[in-house]
């Protein structure tokens, strides 16, 4: 099993993003996903900027995949997506069935991201027929689910990736919750997401951290941390352990996580893996 670095889910200034990927280029992480997956209003980096970063990372010896939006609403967003698919060099991560179609009709291989609904082997086989090379398990599924999928057909004809570390993307809406917090509407959001480098924490009225507002995306307040499950995943035949970055430190986490489980489990969760409520922290297996 190898490590992958998921797409940056937050909105950062261009300089910060560039500095981040400069450091990624120096790391030992073999697989990098790159691109805006949350909101088309975030234009700090244009497609040409991401493409340049992708080439830079490729030259550093990385395998690079271009990630695409999870929610495609306007025709302009779908047209932009087609540009990503037509890049001529890098595979895409499809995070919506529209992206699957764009890759499929061009006979291009693709990765299915965690927001494509893959709930059984027959569905995965169908996507594989259409060009899917690898899939990231939907975040609400479990070890038991994955085991039965992997055991259905040996060898399994596509690669398997697990969202193993980071804040979970739980939902996407037409509404921008971050803008709404500021009394703004999405069309005039002033890119307030820039002020929340890892989203805005929301707590219950008795101070339990519950959610994380990230523009139109709602994330988990707790950080999923499956580093204790690495050995199990290797035995199961998982190909990639995904670290979803939220800061420069995430690069270090990704570099070490396969060798050394993280020790700090405060504010972390692993419930989905153990087939229970996602926010639960189930003690070590």
């Amino acid at each position, binding site marked *: 099993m190898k490590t992958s670095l998921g797409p940056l889910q937050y909105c950062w200034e261009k300089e910060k993003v560039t500095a981040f990927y400069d450091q990624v280029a120096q790391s030992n992480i073999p697989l990098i996903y790159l691109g805006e997956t949350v909101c088309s209003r975030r234009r700090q980096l244009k497609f040409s900027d991401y493409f340049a970063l992708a080439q830079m990372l490729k030259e550093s010896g990385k395998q690079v995949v271009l990630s695409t939006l999870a929610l495609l609403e306007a*025709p302009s967003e779908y047209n932009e997506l087609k540009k990503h698919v037509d890049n001529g060099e890098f595979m895409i991560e499809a995070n919506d*069935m529209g992206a699957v179609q764009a890759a499929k009709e061009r006979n291009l291989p693709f990765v299915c991201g965690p927001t494509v*609904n893959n709930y*059984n082997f027959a569905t995965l086989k169908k*996507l594989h027929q259409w060009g899917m090379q690898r899939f990231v398990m939907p975040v609400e599924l479990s070890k038991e689910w994955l085991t039965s999928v992997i055991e259905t057909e040996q060898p399994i004809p596509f690669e398997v990736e697990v969202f193993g570390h980071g804040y979970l993307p739980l939902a996407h809406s037409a509404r921008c919750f971050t803008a709404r917090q500021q009394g703004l509407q999405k069309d005039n959001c002033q890119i307030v997401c820039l002020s929340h480098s890892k989203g805005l924490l929301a707590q219950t009225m008795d101070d339990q951290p*519950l959610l994380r507002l990230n523009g139109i995306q*709602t994330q*988990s307040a707790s950080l999923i941390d499956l580093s204790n499950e690495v050995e199990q995943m290797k035995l199961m035949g998982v190909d990639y352990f995904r670290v979803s970055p939220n800061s420069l430190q995430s690069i270090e986490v990704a570099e070490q996580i396969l060798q050394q489980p993280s020790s700090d489990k405060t504010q972390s969760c692993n419930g989905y893996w153990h087939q*229970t409520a*996602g926010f639960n922290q189930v003690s070590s297996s």
Partner: protein
Amino acid sequence: MELLCPAGNLASLKTALNAGADAVYLGLKDDTNARSFAGLNFTPKKLQQAAEYTKKCGKKLFLTINTFPKPGEESRWYQAIDLAADTGVDALIMADLSLLDYAHSRYPHLPLHLSVQASATNLGALTLYKEEFNIERAVLPRVLSMKQVRDLAKVTPVDLEVFAFGSLCIMAEGRCHLSSYVTGQSPNTGGSCSPAKHVRWQEAGNDRLTLLNDVLIDKSGLDEQMGYPVVCKGRYTTDENHSPSHILESPTSLNTLSLLPELAKANVVSLKIEGRQRSPAYVEQVTKVWRAAIDSYMSAPEKYQTQQSWDQALAKVSEGQTTTLGAYERNWQ
């Protein structure tokens, strides 16, 4: 323009058809549909009776099989499809690729509607499902603005159905994990959002606490109107706002009576009323209002105006007794 109404049981189905529904949708009494609540839905025998009654009325019946089967459990879903074909329902409403494939290859003449749970919001997604499974219609998620619905309607390869009234999901449907994050139960696999067994109300002084799997998602006055306890309609604080508020959405229902002319002009073929879990009284009230509204529009499109009495009647059966245009209205976003 079809008026499509919910039926949680035979009584609701008859009520809907008698009140003017053109078609009804319903689910089986198991986890093959996303409204798997106790006391709701149809056994195979009841489905047969429902189909006979609907046929006698000259109306249509659609069966909802819109959850995603887990590995090893597919046979229950396949049997539901076989049953639907045997019963002669007018269409299946489905989301899972493998089920669409199964139905399309075995029963090519059985019309397929793409469930909202498939979360298809764009031309690419609709094209894929049309090309691969020959879907006839798609139900649009409640995340598109009216302009986006119009734009999509101009190019879509399939008929479009939209939600016209009822409880408002504010997330892209079929891809929302808020319920499973807190309760472990997912509408995609387990059959409902915020299942009742995880909901608990507790009085504390003058407050009523709403707990979902022991998580405090709301605190309200004892006399306050309460919505259905879902994560997206809870009250929370943030680092920037320490007074609790509905940071995602407040308890409210979708009501698009005022958009009816625009939806009709966009060639939307069907208006869906949400609420299979609601009572026959709700179904009757909502169906009557929408029948009157559609008839009024059809008889004189240029003169159409939302009647105050319609809005009042709908507000009474709405969550929090308030309604919204939701994402159809750009300002809501």
